[in-house]
Every structure is written in structure tokens, then in C-alpha cells.
């Protein structure tokens, strides 16, 4: 294979993680992750508490608390190692937070306007004209059944668990990322809220983007049906399969995986 061909193949992969090791304060969390995600695919990463799921999400997004000791992460063939979190965002990575933070006094609309214009600036584009921004907001909030009044509230301040998660997905819709990582988006949601959030995500799926769903429970995957399921245990992917793997896990529990790994 020539270098050029090799490059072409790599470029068609949305996310390529190779032998990733990461630590926080010398505590090893990720111990050799390999993962390849193509455009149009939805991958689920499941695993028991403490297996490293959220760490993986944070490391991909570039959170500086974690130190990458070994291995690489590439988005569309470009290595992310030297990129700051905001640069990774500009390149199309979006993280839906497990615990979205509050920013008092900053409205959802103002926050989104700033985020979108900062990304445009990074691409050498002018600020989005106000009427275009309004149109986009209207379109996306309708799609996610979001009350317009919600958008003039301070970001996440006093939001219910469901509102916070729906707001994350609204932001995802606004930012139109290439790669979206949903970290425990189902946690704290009742079944109705879960359905709305999942429907939103499904509407945003297309052949050009990719979604990584991180979850503890199989429940969310009934609504967001993955193409692949990976099981994370003690910082490594120990088992991969199709969507039926999630059901098997639900039935047998994580102990089954732990035992299998031990053998």
C-alpha cells in the first residue's frame, strides 16, 4: 500500500483510536483502547461503573486533567494530540456532558451564538447573520420540541435533569458535529424524557456523521439503535459485537464479562 492509499483509507475513518493509555494523577484509567468508527455509524460503549467510559469521552474531547501516556486519537486522519479542546470542537467533535454545568446570567441563545461564531471564526468565516441564527434556532428547537422560552433562560441554571440533557442535544443540533459523543445521556431521565432525547438524536443521524453512545444500561439503546456495541472493562475494550450484545449484557449482567475476562 502506498502512503497516499494509506492516507485515503485513514481519512474515510471518522474516529480512529489506537492503543490509547491515559492516566489521571498517575492512576491508570485507560489501558490500551482500540476503536474505529466510520461515518454513518453509531457505536455504543457499555461497561460497569469505573471501567473508564467517561474518561474515554473526556480524553477524546481533550480535557487537560487526563494525561495521554501512549497511543493516538485521530479524527478524519488528523491526530488530535496537539489540539486544545476548543480546536477539537472546531474540527467537529461534540461531547454531550453527563453533568452539564450551569453558567448563570448567560442565556442558552447567547451561549449558542457565541459557540457557533467562535467555530466560524476558527474557519475564517464571518459571524452568522442574526436572521440566519434565529432561523436555525427556530428550526432546531422545533425539531427537539423545545419551548422557545427555555432558550432565554440561563444556561442549565435551575434546569431539571431532563431539561439539561435535552439542552445538550439541542446544542448538538445547533453545532452539527461530525462526531458526537453522548456521555450517559440517559442518566436521570424518565422514560418520556428519554424518548424525546433519543428521537432528537435519531433525527440528527446521517451518513456523514458518527455517534458514540456511552451508557451503563441497555435501555437507551432501544431508542438509539447502535451498529456496534463495545464492552469496556478495566480500561480496555474486552468484547465487541452487534446490537444483540447489549441485550445479552442486560440479561447476564456485567459479572458475566468480568468472569469471561478472568478466564
Amino acid at each position, binding site marked *: 500500500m502506498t502512503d497516499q492509499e494509506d492516507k485515503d483509507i485513514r481519512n474515510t475513518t471518522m474516529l480512529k483510536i489506537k492503543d490509547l493509555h491515559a492516566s489521571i494523577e498517575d492512576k491508570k484509567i485507560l489501558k490500551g483502547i482500540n476503536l474505529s468508527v466510520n461515518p454513518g455509524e453509531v457505536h455504543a460503549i457499555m461497561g460497569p461503573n469505573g471501567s473508564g467510559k467517561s474518561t474515554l469521552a473526556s480524553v477524546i474531547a*481533550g480535557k*487537560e486533567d487526563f494525561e495521554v501516556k501512549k497511543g493516538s486519537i485521530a479524527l478524519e486522519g488528523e491526530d488530535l494530540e496537539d489540539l486544545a479542546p*476548543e480546536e477539537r*470542537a*472546531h474540527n467537529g467533535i*461534540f461531547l454531550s456532558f453527563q453533568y452539564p*454545568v450551569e*453558567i448563570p446570567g*448567560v442565556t442558552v441563545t447567547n451561549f449558542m451564538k457565541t*459557540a457557533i461564531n467562535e467555530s466560524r471564526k476558527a474557519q475564517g468565516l464571518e459571524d452568522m447573520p442574526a436572521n440566519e441564527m434565529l432561523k436555525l434556532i427556530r428550526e432546531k428547537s422545533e425539531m427537539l420540541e423545545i419551548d422557545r422560552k427555555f432558550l432565554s433562560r440561563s444556561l442549565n441554571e435551575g434546569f431539571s435533569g431532563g431539561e439539561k440533557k435535552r439542552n445538550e442535544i439541542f446544542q448538538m443540533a445547533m453545532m452539527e458535529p461530525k462526531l458526537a459523543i453522548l456521555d450517559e445521556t440517559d442518566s436521570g431521565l424518565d422514560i418520556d424524557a428519554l424518548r424525546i432525547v433519543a428521537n432528537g438524536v435519531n433525527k440528527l443521524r446521517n451518513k456523514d456523521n458518527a455517534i458514540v453512545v456511552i451508557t451503563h444500561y441497555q435501555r437507551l439503546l432501544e431508542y438509539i439503535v447502535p451498529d456496534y456495541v463495545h464492552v469496556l472493562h478495566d480500561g480496555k475494550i474486552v468484547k465487541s459485537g452487534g446490537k444483540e450484545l447489549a441485550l445479552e449484557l442486560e440479561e447476564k449482567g456485567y459479572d458475566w464479562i468480568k468472569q469471561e475476562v478472568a478466564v
Partner: protein
Amino acid sequence: MAYTEEELKKELETKEYEYGFYTDIESDTFPKGLNADIVRAISKKKNEPEWMTEWRLEAFRVWEAMEEPEWANVHYEKPDFQAISYYSAPKQADPNKTLDDVDPELLEMYRKLGISIDEQKRLQNVAVDIVVDSVSVATTFQKTLEEKGILFMPISEAIQKHPDLVKKYIGSVVPRTDNFYAALNSAVFTDGSFCYIPKGVKCPMELSTYFRINEGGTGQFERTLVIADESSYVSYLEGCTAPSRDENQLHAAVVELIALDDAEIKYSTVQNWFPGDSEGKGGVFNFVTKRGLCEKNSKISWTQVETGSAVTWKYPSCILKGDNSVGEFYSIAVTNNFQQADTGTKMVHLGNNTRSTIISKGISAGKSQNSYRGLVQVSSRAQNARNFSQCDSLLMGNECGAHTFPYIETKNKSAQIEHEATTSKIGEDQIFYCNQRGIDTEKAIALIVNGFSKEVLNKLPMEFAVEAQKLLEISLEGSVG
């Protein structure tokens, strides 16, 4: 004044205090030091009537017997009052000249300050009285105001032209004996603004004063007197800058507001005096006495954005004398590097059904110390007084301090007083959340700080609010590593 992201970015890159230029204009400066002869000489220089000279001399005698106050939560080397020059005027300044006659270097200075007079005249509908060092150089818009009977002029001119008004009100809200710096100001004030709004008149434009200390080794002691006659309204803006210098410069102003029955005064300040460099060298000492008197059904509203000065000592206050009068204080105080601010307000409830609101937002970064000090006082005769106070502090980093000193003295059981206080820190998780949405750290801080300050920023007139937001961003540049 609109500004683009690009301009802001360019400014942030330089990091230096952006108003730190010194304009080489010929000045007429008094020898350093203070005694009765200097006080007389200032008065003579201004062609003041005898009563004014005597008024000043009495203030000087009071001041001589006073001690500099030490109760504020600030630490600094006390100024040597004999090493200050008490009068400095640009030589070519002549209040009778038109703008065309003004020294082109002065005009250039205004341009650097971003307050081109022509621009202001044409676009902003703001009348500007500019005080450079100690003299008002040009007062714009006077004719338009005169038609409404509004008087807006340098106070030195008002002493000549409207002595009755000045005599009646000067020192009536802030007496010469009030405090050390008020006494000093009363003795040596060299200029400032005077404003009178006649009965029933709504001032059709924002009135604005721009102060700037230019000459080295000078103090600026301006005196502002605003009188809103019955049922009148005025919105007054004040902005301040000073060039960067190694030595400390003293600024000791007195502002007196008088709101007669049913009148309303809105007084907004954006203060950006030189805060000293990143090692804490230099900077302006800002020791200011601001107070307003409210008669029946009147309202005084103070809004301040304080980003500058090495040491700030300032408590814009309201004496709610008349029944149903209203006092408001909205403040944003930012301290960075080695700045120290001790600021707040006094709300003195004397009349029945008087109401006051205090919203204070303190932002501390670097190694700075930021204190809120407020007094809510309800006299025994004041029935149904109400106060609401909210003091929020935002900390950035681990080396700064935020302090709150709320004093409540009430002698009437019908009073309702509420006080809320919060302290928060800009969290790494907030910054990372913004980063993840493509917003870099600098911009994220600006966003968080603006959100924190929003209730106060919303109280500022539009053109000032934009300027204030920009100042907040510049002041906090580089404060979170």
C-alpha cells in the same frame, strides 16, 4: 460605541493599559505642596468670589485637623500631601474658544480616548464636558441644553454665572467636615461639572463627563454638583482614565446629587483609572465621596463599573430624606493583579415608605482584594422602610480575596430588610464546558463574567454597557492560567 471582535483581540494581545499614553501639551502647574496660600492661589486663578475663597479656606482648616482614615480594608503607602501639585491646567485651555480653536494635541488625546467630540456630537446625542487634569476644556452641546433651561458647565463657570445655586447646594450633601478626602477636595478642587435641570424638564440626552489625569505628580480633585429640580429627570455618565505612571496619583473627588420632589437622577460611572502594573507598581488612588439627597417621591440611582485604580475607596450613597423616595446602587467592581477595592454604599432611610436596592457584583482575580462595605440605616421616624441587598462575589484563581461587610442599623420595627450574599469561583468545569463548545478560555471567562454581571450591566445606558463589557474583558485578560 460598537467594536469588533478583531479590535478586541488586537487590544488583548497588547495587554498593557491601553490609555497609558502621555500627551505633551504645555501645562501651567503650581509648585508642589499645600498651605493656605496655595488654596488662595487656586481660588484666585479661578477668579472666584470672596465667599468661595473663604469656603475653601474653612475646608482647609478642617482638613488640617483631620487624620487620614484607616478603617477600609486596603493597605497602601499614604500619599505625601506636600509632594502633590494641586493645580495643573493645559496652558491653551480657554473655555470661550470653539472646538476649532482647541489644541490639536488635545483633540488627538480625545481621539485616543475614543471620545472624538465631533463623533459624540453627531452620533451619540451625548453632551460631553471633558476635564483634563484640572480644567474643563470643552463643553459640547451647551446651546441645545440652554434652550431647555438646562445648565451644564464646568463648576468653575457655574461659580461665576450661577453663584446662588452653587452657594445654596455645594457642601449641602457632603459637608466639608464629612471626611478627610472630602475636606481636602473642598479646599483644593479645581474643576468638575455642574448641572441643573429646571422644574418639570426631562433632559433629552445623556450628560457625560470624561475625566483624565494627564500631568505627572498631579492630583485630580474634581467636584460635581447635579441638581434635579422638582419633577425633572437626568441621566448622567462619567468615565475616567489616566496615563500609566510609576508613581501613584491621587484622585479625590466629591460628587453631590440633589433630587428635589418627584425628580429622578440616574448617575452612571465607568472608572478605568490606571490600576498599576502587574507587579503592583504605580496606579491611581481613588478616594471618592459620592452622595445623593432624595426629597419627596424622588429617586437616585447609582450605577458603577469599577475596573481601574490601584486602591479604591468609594461608597456612592443615598440619603432618603423625603417620604416615598427611592435609592438604588448597582455596582460591578473588578480587581486584578495587586488592586485593592473597598467599595459599596450607604442607604440612609429617614422618610416614610422609603425603598432602597443594592446589587453588588465583585470580581477578584490575580492577587487582588475586593471588599463590599455597605450600610443600611433606618431611623426611628422612618415607617415602612424597605431594603433589598444582594452581594455576589466571583473569584478567579487561589490568590485573590473577596470580603463582604454589610452593616444594618435599624431603629424602626416596621422596616423590612433583606440581605443575600453568594461567593462563587469560576470553575475549571465551566471553562472546559465552554472550550468543548469551541469557545477558548479567554472568551469563556468574558462570557461567564458578563453573565455574572448582567443585572448591573443592564442598568447602564446602551453605549456605556458596550464599553463596560469591553473593559471587563480587558481587565481580566490573562487572569486564569
